[in-house]
């Protein structure tokens, strides 16, 4: 009886092998790029999106007044020309910019999108990025109606913006997603479902979404209505896999199922063994621990925060726990790559790194316990993501704070969307978070901890910090702006509402058949809109 069973088994196996190989050879490759994403984009409504996954998708399917080119320069997008003054800006839109349904992109589409973003009903976390526009802040606070926003469509092709105060970096903002246009009739027709699925979005960028299997796959196809057809060489971008699992993505790349791979610490050795040509770039984001300042939280106590700061060795953390070459130990909020007046901001305003000093840390801890009247070290809730690095970081700090300060950390691991929700709701003592730049100016980091910023999740409030940020936002003079931001940075580093941990570096590799992939610190990354793929 044994033989037939084996024979049948053999045939089944053989058949499946043939099927798998058949599947492989059938796969189209010419002008198609395959990638995997770490998570599904949680929000494709451009007025509300905050995260990098959504930003990457939006950057491919939408276009603002300007865009950032391969060299990192601001170049014309929907606007073909503009005029900037201290009082405002006038943009002239190109006549051939179209929505994916063929109708032209008009100045009204920008007016509508921007008004929606500042509308208190939208409750956009990114509303603050429109604050350079007149009345934006008052509208967000509900003191004025959205129609009072300082933006007007003089005609279909002329958009006039009035500034609240002179703004030195407005042009850099116009390529950001919150500034993308939305067409009013389409938006209202979706009845609150705008951006929730591929049919609920209208596209004006180089690509459009033609498939979105939630949690499983995405497909971008070239948008035939896009004005700059010459720029787009790819026919499709396929995202057949959405997985946060690094080793799964590594295997997908090795099996030539995807063309672009970011490498985690665990897969670096294997990548070297496989002989991949590795590339490195400063991803731009700064990572930090953010403390909760909501009343009743122990993390409001500065001595506790100082104690944690002095227990931490940023260089050991960057080299041994993060373990990605190029990782910069976190010493400040404004990253090392950011330009200041004429040289990198950090070289113009140097920051001294605070090293580990266990005795001092314990002294601060003792002072904290005395002030709070605690008999024994408290336990704190540590909110974090689900990536292997997030887990490693959490357990590193758990052990560090336990051995040095006696603090018990309760690790609350959450999926991305849930973590954002919990951060918003303030359900944490310490959250491990990161911030990627929205535009190429130190302000994109500096105003993050202004008390009015929705993304200041810990609700830290410091009057002099706020005043310095306001001062920097009210002038176009680079020297004044940079000086105030540097002064604000010093306050932040002294008060420690955050503990910077590292500046991320990404090691990646791509398959030989593709070229023209743009990696950047500012803007949608990776940018595949100018990539090309051979057979």
């Amino acid at each position, binding site marked *: 009886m044994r033989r037939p069973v084996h024979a049948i088994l053999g045939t089944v196996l053989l058949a499946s092998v043939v099927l798998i190989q058949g599947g492989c050879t059938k796969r189209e490759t010419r002008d198609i790029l395959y990638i995997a994403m770490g998570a599904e984009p949680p929000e494709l409504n451009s007025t509300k999106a905050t995260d990098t996954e959504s930003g990457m998708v939006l950057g491919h399917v939408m276009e603002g007044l300007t865009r950032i080119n391969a060299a990192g320069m601001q170049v014309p997008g929907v606007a073909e020309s503009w005029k900037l003054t201290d009082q405002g800006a006038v943009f002239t839109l190109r006549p051939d910019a179209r929505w994916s349904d063929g109708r032209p992109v008009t100045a009204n589409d920008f007016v509508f999108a921007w008004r929606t973003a500042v509308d208190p009903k939208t409750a956009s976390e990114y509303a603050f990025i429109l604050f350079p526009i007149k009345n934006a802040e008052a509208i967000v606070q509900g003191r004025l109606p959205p129609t009072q926003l300082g933006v007007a469509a003089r005609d279909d092709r002329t958009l006039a913006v009035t500034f609240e105060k002179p703004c030195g970096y407005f042009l850099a903002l116009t390529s950001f997603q919150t500034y993308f246009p939305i067409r009013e009739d389409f938006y209202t027709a979706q009845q609150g479902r705008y951006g929730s699925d591929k049919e609920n979005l209208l596209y004006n960028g180089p690509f459009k979404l033609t498939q979105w299997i939630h949690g499983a796959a995405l497909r971008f196809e070239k948008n035939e209505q896009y004005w700059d057809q010459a720029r787009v060489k790819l026919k499709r971008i396929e995202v057949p896999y959405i997985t946060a699992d*690094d*080793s799964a993505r*590594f*295997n997908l790349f090795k099996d030539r199922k995807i063309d672009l791979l970011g490498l985690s*610490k*665990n*897969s*670096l*050795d*294997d990548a*070297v*063994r496989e*002989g991949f*040509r*590795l*590339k*490195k770039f400063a991803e731009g984001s700064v990572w930090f621990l953010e403390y909760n300042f909501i009343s009743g939280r122990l993390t409001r106590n500065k001595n506790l925060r100082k104690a944690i700061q002095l227990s931490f060795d940023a*260089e*050991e953390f960057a*080299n*041994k*726990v993060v*373990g990605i*070459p*190029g990782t910069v130990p976190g010493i400040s909020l404004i990253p090392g790559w950011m330009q200041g007046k004429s040289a990198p901001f950090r070289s113009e305003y140097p920051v001294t790194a605070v*090293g580990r000093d266990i005795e001092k840390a314990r002294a601060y801890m003792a002072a904290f316990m005395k002030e709070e009247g605690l008999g024994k070290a408290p336990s704190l*809730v*540590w*909110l974090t993501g689900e990536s*292997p690095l997030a*887990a*490693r970081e*959490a*357990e*590193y700090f*758990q*052990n560090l704070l*336990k051995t040095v300060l006696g603090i018990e*950390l*309760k*690790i*609350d*691991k*959450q999926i991305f969307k849930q973590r954002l929700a919990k951060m918003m709701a303030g*359900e944490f003592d310490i959250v491990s978070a990161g911030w990627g730049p929205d535009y190429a100016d130190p302000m994109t980091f500096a105003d993050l901890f202004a008390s009015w910023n929705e993304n200041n999740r810990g609700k830290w409030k410091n009057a002099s910090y706020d005043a310095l940020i306001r001062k920097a936002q009210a002038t176009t003079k680079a020297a004044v702006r940079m000086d105030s931001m540097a002064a604000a940075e010093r306050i932040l580093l002294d008060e420690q509402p955050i503990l910077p941990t590292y500046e991320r570096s990404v*090691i990646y590799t791509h398959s030989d058949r593709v070229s023209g992939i743009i990696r950047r610190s500012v803007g949608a990354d990776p940018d595949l809109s100018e990539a090309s793929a051979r057979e």
Partner: protein
Amino acid sequence: MNELKPSDFERAPSRQALHRISRPSLSYWQDAWLRLRRNRQAIFSLGIVMALVFFTLAGPWLWRQDPSTQLLEEASLGPTLGRKAVVVEELDSWSPEFADARATAWDRVQDLRVIGEPTTEGITLQWGPVEGAEGYAIYRTDRKPRGLNRLGLPLAEVKKPGQLSFRDRMNVEPRSYTYTVLPIFKGLEAEVYGRVKVAPRIALKLAAAQRLKAGARVGDTIVLPAHPFGTDSLGRDLLSRIIAGARISLSIGLLAPLLYMLLGVLIGGFAGYSGGRIDLAIVRGIDLVVALPFLLFMILFRIAFGVGPGESGVHAMVVAMVALSWPSSARLVRGQVMQLREAEYVQAARLLGARTGYLLLRHLIPNTMGVILVYLTFAIPSTIFTEAFLSFIGMGVVPPTPSWGSLCNDGIQSFLSHPHEFIFPAIFISVTVLAFNLLGDGLRDALDPKQRGSS
């Protein structure tokens, strides 16, 4: 014809002695033990189970390493038996070397060399200046590079004018590395590279060394703790983590089945013995519980118990298992009891006036014991598996407490580069589950009364 004697008319002796059973009388359990002993697989499994219990209870005394102590210098190490490390100073105050303006520049990277002693705490490279280079890119590989291929890790770009040195501290391991330094012209890496091979020594910073051995001084050689199963990605000893994890995994694996079997036996026994409407109602109740989804209730119990974020959900897990897993054992016992209740000897005992308690204790429970025991040995591995699964998806134990499931979860992240982190805990789960299953198999055969006296 023979003469009859009076003795012939005496009463013949009783032949009872001939009927004496030659084998010693064996109780049911003795008999079962005899049969189990003949089953080699089962005895072997019993040995493994006993060894595991010993491992769990005595492990922490025999293997005195703390499961949560991290030593980042020893992260992701394969199995080792005490490596030797030299104690070095804290090297934080390193500043790069800059070119002397008068130095002659070459057309390629020349004179690439290692400064000082290369150790796992840092390797310092220095090289001669290249004419017109705006910076240098440094690559490191533990393989053999071929020309510009297989350069390995892009460690850094040195862009400060005149900087001609670099210190590598990025996860340096005691293996042979090849560094390639390429000059950069106009943003592009040029082919005129220099290359050097380095084999660093294992080193430990003074502070870390003093934690291991009080009074350690710079220059001393100290022996690092042995790690027979290697370490995990934060340099924690895997053997001690597996021992600690065994405590969680085995205690849940034994406690939960014992509790829910007890509940099942009580409910099933009651239903089977009562019969009639009570039985019907209980059986419908059992059907209801069977239909409840385990994972959902697990989450509900977590909320009901107020298990906050980052707190251990082990008690909620045990309660959910007990509350939802008893029906199958209840069904089993009910069937047995119903069958036994109608057996002639039970009927006879009842006619002779035996009370319910006597019937239960003397006849019903002892006769279902075998079935219960077998069921229990199968329930234990499945519970261990459930615990492993729940900890794997993050619903069970929380860090730093390890369980076999969470160890597997951590290990699988780096399975390709450091397979030992996954394989060792996985072996323990597999062997335990297999041993309990084989033991259960053996017990089932041994306790089956139909096989009595056979084999």
